[in-house]
């Protein structure tokens, strides 16, 4: 019965809206994914690896929030939201990585 009810609202609003349990799990995971990189950044050992590790924590946090809070999934109704998100993610990557690539390159040739 409650499953049916969920399905009805899913169809209406185009996405799933989770359960109290999924919000609590998501909340605890996101707290952990905030505290661990914070502690790591305070006690830095090797700089280059630390940048990558902290970046990976941010990506993990992104995935946790997308799944538990925004309920992105491959289920039929949420599928379109996911497709648009993937497209946007690609655009964002081209924009940020492309900018950094060009500017770092420019910086290098100005100096050498």
């Amino acid at each position, binding site marked *: 019965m409650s499953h049916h009810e969920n399905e009805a609202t899913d169809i209406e609003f185009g996405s799933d809206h989770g359960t109290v349990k999924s919000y609590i799990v998501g909340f605890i995971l996101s707290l952990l994914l905030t505290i661990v990189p914070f502690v790591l950044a305070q006690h830095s050992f090797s700089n280059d690896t*630390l940048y990558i590790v902290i970046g990976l924590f941010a990506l993990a946090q992104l995935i946790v929030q997308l799944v538990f809070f925004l309920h992105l999934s491959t289920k039929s109704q949420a599928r379109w939201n996911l497709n648009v998100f993937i497209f946007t993610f690609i655009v964002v990557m081209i924009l940020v990585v492309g900018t950094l690539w060009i500017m770092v390159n420019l910086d290098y040739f100005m100096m050498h």
Partner: protein
Amino acid sequence: MSSIAHHSTAHDSAHGHHDTQSTIVFGFWIYIMSDCILFATLFATFAVLHTHTLGGPGPKELFSMPIVLAETFILLTSSFTYGLALLAAFRKHQRQVIGFLIVTFILGLSFVVIEVTEFTHLVHEGHSWRSSAFLSSFFTLVGTHGLHVTLGLVWMLGLMIQVKRHGLTHVTQRKLTALSLFWHFLDIVWIFVFTIVYLMGMI
């Protein structure tokens, strides 16, 4: 049981609205994705300019990490309480919805107050957006996020009044869904501000 029965009759009578409701939420999702691209340009600008401090102090000297961590926890918690408000909205518990929205609003407001206090503190110490390219890009990026949160708060206040007046209708439920996407999205943007501006600035 009666609430489920009630829900299914409400659902039947609203038959035909499904397409419009989910299309509107999907349209709002597309707006949020375009907002993502706006933030991506600001992040790219910050990433390029963050070393250009013009001889002034860098992130290590300027930012107080405990305050930033507190801001992060406040925003994460507000995202969680908003999620609970949305769940209550679909269960048609109006009092709970208003209660969780008030908690979310207070958390969001304290986030903005802390941020504005930090900004005025920086400006008073002579580190304004005019001081260096690093600070210009910092204030633009973090300020844009803060402005989004402020607008979200105004919207939330409006929704609280609408829920109070009209109850949890299909329209208010849809509006609450749209604001939930916006609010969680701002939380995600903050995670990247926290990581890229503050944590990576500390290393």
